[in-house]
């Protein structure tokens, strides 16, 4: 991230309260992840130890240290979706995209080797009436079945 943009973001937060998380949130939204260099730069600029920032970024599931691919697929794992088979949806996605569930930090965020798709999981979207749901780049898909996955993926340029 450009140092000038970072300075602008920091300038949005003149008071201490909510400053650190607010800045991190804006970086996450802008860059879709928190770049390591930006975090280091930020630590010096707002005089918060890097260890503290790193603790925050790894704690909240909202933040990600890994860059995401072209399309972001968020699978809802809230209770109603879970009951309606969200686990199967995720399995189907993993199978089609060739990603695995391995996680070292407890956060589910998998990107395909060609950097086209990133799959993450979330808790409730508030669209339980359409469970199970998933979201691709902000677009909601309801009543999803594992069989529908290839069709949804093809809409975003996935090829068998």
């Amino acid at each position, binding site marked *: 991230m450009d140092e000038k943009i970072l300075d602008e973001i920091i300038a949005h937060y003149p008071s201490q309260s909510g400053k650190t998380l607010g800045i991190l949130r804006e970086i996450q939204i802008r860059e879709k992840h928190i770049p390591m260099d930006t975090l280091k730069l930020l630590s010096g600029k707002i005089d918060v130890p890097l260890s503290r920032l790193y603790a925050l970024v*790894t704690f909240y599931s909202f933040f990600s240290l890994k860059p995401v691919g072209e399309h972001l697929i968020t699978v809802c794992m809230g209770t109603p979706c879970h009951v309606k088979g969200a686990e199967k949806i995720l399995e189907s996605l993993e199978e089609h995209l060739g990603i695995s569930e391995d996680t070292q930090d407890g956060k589910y965020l998998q990107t395909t080797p060609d950097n086209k798709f990133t799959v993450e999981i979330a808790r409730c979207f508030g669209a339980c009436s359409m469970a199970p749901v998933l979201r691709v780049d902000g677009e909601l898909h309801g009543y999803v079945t594992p069989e529908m996955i290839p069709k949804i993926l093809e809409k975003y340029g996935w090829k068998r």
Partner: protein
Amino acid sequence: MSLLGNGKRMVTVTINKNQYLAEEGEIFLLTANRLGIDIPHLCYEKALEPYGACRLCMVDVVTCGKTDMTPACTIRVQNGLEILTDTPQIIKHRNLLFELYLAEAPKSEVIKEMAAKYGVTKTRFLKKIVHDDPLQGKCILCGLCVRVCEEIMGASAISFINRGPYTVINTPFYEHNPDCEGCAACAKVCPTNAIVFEDIGTNRVMQSWSDTTVPLMICPECGKPFAPQRLMEKVLTKPESGLIEEIKDLCPECRRKYFTLREIRKIPTNGGQA
């Protein structure tokens, strides 16, 4: 010895139905320890504010006939304080905690010994096995190292990373952290001796903290490395370090030698006869 000499009031506390005299405002855990009443604990550190993280020092506070489980390290002695330290409920709680700790830090001898002392040798929980754990499978995540690094040393070189079952303590991005001063206070306060570091040549290597390497100060007198450079610089810039100019760069051994030699030189060679 005067009971009131230091301005502190002596009050009466009741522990397990026996009455004792104790200093008002004292941390109850210390009072009990001093009186020989055994309360197990892991995360109490006198240099830091009581935190109640390990939950092992749980005791029952009796108020108006009702009991309330509270960590002994967060209780301050006051007149009429009534405590029970070994009720069946407390023992049950303690034993369960020991089982959890045996699963959390399966390699820790400290935990094993402590648990065995209370009759707990096995755990029903899944043991946490981490390959190449920089904390040797001994960390209980009490946070003392993180707190001492931030609150006492002001370095904030390490922190909690991730959360829930994935929580670990290390440097940001698991890489060498220039914020570390190599003071090793973290290793000193660790209740389970999980933190490893070693002085290799003229460097101190914090093996648990992603091999963060800090250069050591070399004694100009004997040429031996003795303390982390950055730490020494910090100490020496303190006003009134109380050190005289000639010895301030020397290692503790050479400082002692300097004083001994000075004392010897003062003794007249003719045995003190005029």
